[in-house]
């Protein structure tokens, strides 16, 4: 009987440290960039669903009208695919929905953005990039949100998005020509190499003591160091990239002891943080720093308000039958009206941000066409009809150069086979995993078996759904 020589190395830090390290692993991936126009994807999450009949067009086909909540997307209607009748399978409630949008089932251990990142790191310095806008702060501004919300490496390991836009910017664009001057840039590069060399030397020394069975425990660490090393020595690192104009308002993050109190977590700073994170996403794609971005706007328990809308946040507003500040209980008719008004205001605000991001990509030239033409924007929330995971507002925007049939509204309700087991037994709506399969196909991610696909009777060919 073989006995593992276990426990020779243990993670030394707290969960936060482990998460930070994991993030570092994901953030520092490096390879040369292709000169040709590349396909790109942005997963754009907004929280807590919406009133579906105020979002989904009533019509299908190429002639359709937007509703109250989707109206901000009117300038981009011809570049969008609105999809009604899509369910977030297999969830029945919204907890964990911001993670579920990136996997088809629990069998999909790694979320698609990270899976893509593993593949794309061969062609971009950062395989994938996870950016968040106040997505880790919970009620009261203290604990990290308790449910799985983020990209995951495994069922037990999540990758926390970077919430501080200034840190994200520094990580993604450090080493590029930022106008600091050749001498300063060379010194910065030398410092980074020196730090990396020290870590490498420690790794070599440690590895000499490790038996083969233990080396796998530091595989991720080793890979991260190699990637960083590659990035620092990659000619791409020194590629000129037009970063002028970033952070026009001079947003700063003064040091505080509790990160939950940091400037980027303040409710009144959400608009500027959102602007900066979207700009980092745009620049990352434009400068070839990555080809896959996940933008998380808050999380499924979002309690942070938008100034001027209400004081309890979108999660509270989505529980509109409960009194203000409560998730359960019976509200008065006046309270219900007020909550619905607030919920709709939140959703319009998010739709405005999505429209803003689309315009930013449209205005950015790519090798061929615009960034928007070569980028799949996959929008979703986690809820639809009646606080359930039906008629979820999934939509595609962009990717016209990739064959997406833009400028249409589709309703899959009743058009696909019914689920035959719980939790959606009898429901005739498209499983969102079909949409993931389309993204995988367009990004060139090889899928084995039912990865990111639904394995039940709804074994449709996603490429024949009229989306592409």
């Amino acid at each position, binding site marked *: 009987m073989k006995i593992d020589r276990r426990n*020779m190395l243990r993670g*030394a830090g707290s969960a936060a440290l482990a998460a930070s390290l994991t993030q570092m692993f994901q953030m520092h991936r490096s390879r040369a960039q292709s000169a040709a126009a590349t396909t790109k994807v942005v997963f754009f999450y907004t929280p807590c669903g919406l009133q579906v009949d105020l979002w989904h067009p009533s019509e299908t086909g190429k002639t359709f009208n937007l509703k109250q909540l989707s109206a901000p997307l009117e300038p981009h209607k011809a570049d969008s695919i609105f999809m009604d009748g899509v369910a977030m399978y297999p969830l029945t409630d919204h907890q964990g929905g911001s993670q579920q949008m990136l996997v088809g089932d629990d069998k999909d251990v790694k979320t698609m953005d990270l899976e893509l990142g593993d593949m794309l790191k061969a062609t971009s310095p950062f395989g994938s990039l996870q950016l968040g806008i106040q997505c880790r702060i919970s009620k009261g501004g203290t604990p990290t949100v308790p449910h799985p919300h983020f990209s995951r490496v495994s069922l037990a390991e999540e990758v926390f998005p970077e919430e501080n836009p200034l840190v994200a910017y520094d990580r993604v664009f450090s080493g590029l020509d930022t106008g600091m001057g050749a001498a300063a840039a060379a010194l910065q590069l*030398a410092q980074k190499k*020196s730090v990396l060399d*020290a870590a490498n030397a*420690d790794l070599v020394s440690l590895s000499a003591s490790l038996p083969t069975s233990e080396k796998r425990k530091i595989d991720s660490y080793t890979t991260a160091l190699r990637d960083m090393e590659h990035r620092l020595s990659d000619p791409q690192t020194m590629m000129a990239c037009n970063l002028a104009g970033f952070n026009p308002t001079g947003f700063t993050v003064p040091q505080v002891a509790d990160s939950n109190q940091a400037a980027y977590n303040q409710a009144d700073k959400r608009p500027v943080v959102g602007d900066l994170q979207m700009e980092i996403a745009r620049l990352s794609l434009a400068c070839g720093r990555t080809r896959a971005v996940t933008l998380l706007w808050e999380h499924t328990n979002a309690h942070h308000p938008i100034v001027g809308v209400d004081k309890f946040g979108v999660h509270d507003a989505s529980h509109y039958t409960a009194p203000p500040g409560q998730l359960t209980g019976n509200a008065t008719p006046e309270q219900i009206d007020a909550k619905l008004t607030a919920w709709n205001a939140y959703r319009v605000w998010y739709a405005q941000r999505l429209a803003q991001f689309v315009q930013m990509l449209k205005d950015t030239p790519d090798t061929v066409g615009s960034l928007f033409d070569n980028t799949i924007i996959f929008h979703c929330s986690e809820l639809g009809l009646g606080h359930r995971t039906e008629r979820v507002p999934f939509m595609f925007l962009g990717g016209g150069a990739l064959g997406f049939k833009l400028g249409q509204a589709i309703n899959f309700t009743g058009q696909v086979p019914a689920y035959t087991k719980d939790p959606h037994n009898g429901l005739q709506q498209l499983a969102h995993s079909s949409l993931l399969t389309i993204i995988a196909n367009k990004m060139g991610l090889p899928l084995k078996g039912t990865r990111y696909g639904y394995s039940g009777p709804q074994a449709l060919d996603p490429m024949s759904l009229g989306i592409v």
Partner: protein
Amino acid sequence: MRRVVHRQRAFRRPLTDAEKARYLAQFDPALTGGQFKTGVELTIRSLLMSPSFLFRSELGKDDGKGTFTLTPYETASALSYLFWGTMPDAALFASAASGALANKSEIEAQARRLLADPRGRGEVARFFYEWLESPRAYVATKDQVAFPKLFATATSLDAIRSAMREEQDDFVTHVVFDSTKHFDELFNATYTFANADLAAYYGLPTAGVGATTQKVELGADSTRGGLLTLGMFLFGHARTTASSPTQRGHMIRASLLCDDIPPPPANVDTATAPATPGNTTRQQILAVTANGVCPTCHQLQDPIGFGLEGFDGAAVARTMDNGEAVDASGAINGLTGPQGEALTFNGARQLSQLVAANPRARGCFTTNYYRFARGFDAKGVDTCAVNKLKNDLVGSDLALPELFVKLALQDSFTKRRSAEVVEP
């Protein structure tokens, strides 16, 4: 700066000469531009990126017999992370530096010192918090109509949950460190800990109970007392609008008795229908699980959970449920007492007594503490280590702190085996 680089805290051991040279090199003026502050920054960045900072070493020294013995510094970290959940303090480092930690007598002395420290109490409380799946109390949604006392004010729910956490932490550390220190008191205690708000919420006498959490005697006729009736346990293992004999029974069966119960079949709707007047939670559970394959597993867990029906889904004691009298009788099916008798009971007190007296519960406690301490499920030779500890707790009724110390004194705590070694 040389002093900083020479410090051992980052790696939890002294730096080697090569490491010192490596980090001092970060002060090269070619890198710092002559700025001392920049050198400090680069050194700290290097230290924080090192695998020796990020990973806890348990490599050990080769004994030449296929086994490796932890160095004194590695032993120091193993002890401090076990009993404190953090790095060694100066005394432990000093013990490692002197080489004393190579001896079991010193390991025992340090283990006792660490356990006696307030941080030792905190880590023991954390073990119970994780073992009893207490985080569920924080994510459990409670209905405002079903449990109006939780929503009396805007801060009631948070305040009650916070008081329940203090109740649990103070209760378990009191038993382990201040009272009898024995396993059975965890279940048979006739007291709990509460502040005035929690006492009032539970319906306990509030005379003499202040704003801070304190020991509160419950009386012989109280249904409350022991781990199974702690607020976090009852609150977390319950439904949004009601109690849950299934969840509570499953928790006791799986985590306190270490029996495996398979999940329900994939095509079963586990949502329980809304309560109908005149039907207790118990009656509803019995009705929906009476047919098909359901009883096979439910009879192993629900009859245990029925014993806690004297408490609603928000941990408040009750005698009526949905307009009907509560029936808290039940049984631990599949297990028998020392004379082969059926393990039947009526109410939480009797259920707790049965669990406390059952050898399987003590064995399960030991297994779970071993998991907590070592970070893996025991198998192979480690099974022997767990069994030795089980024998101590079951056969000798070892005091719990002694059990914790004994774990640190086992050979398996300081020895590692090579993957190439084949067990006979």
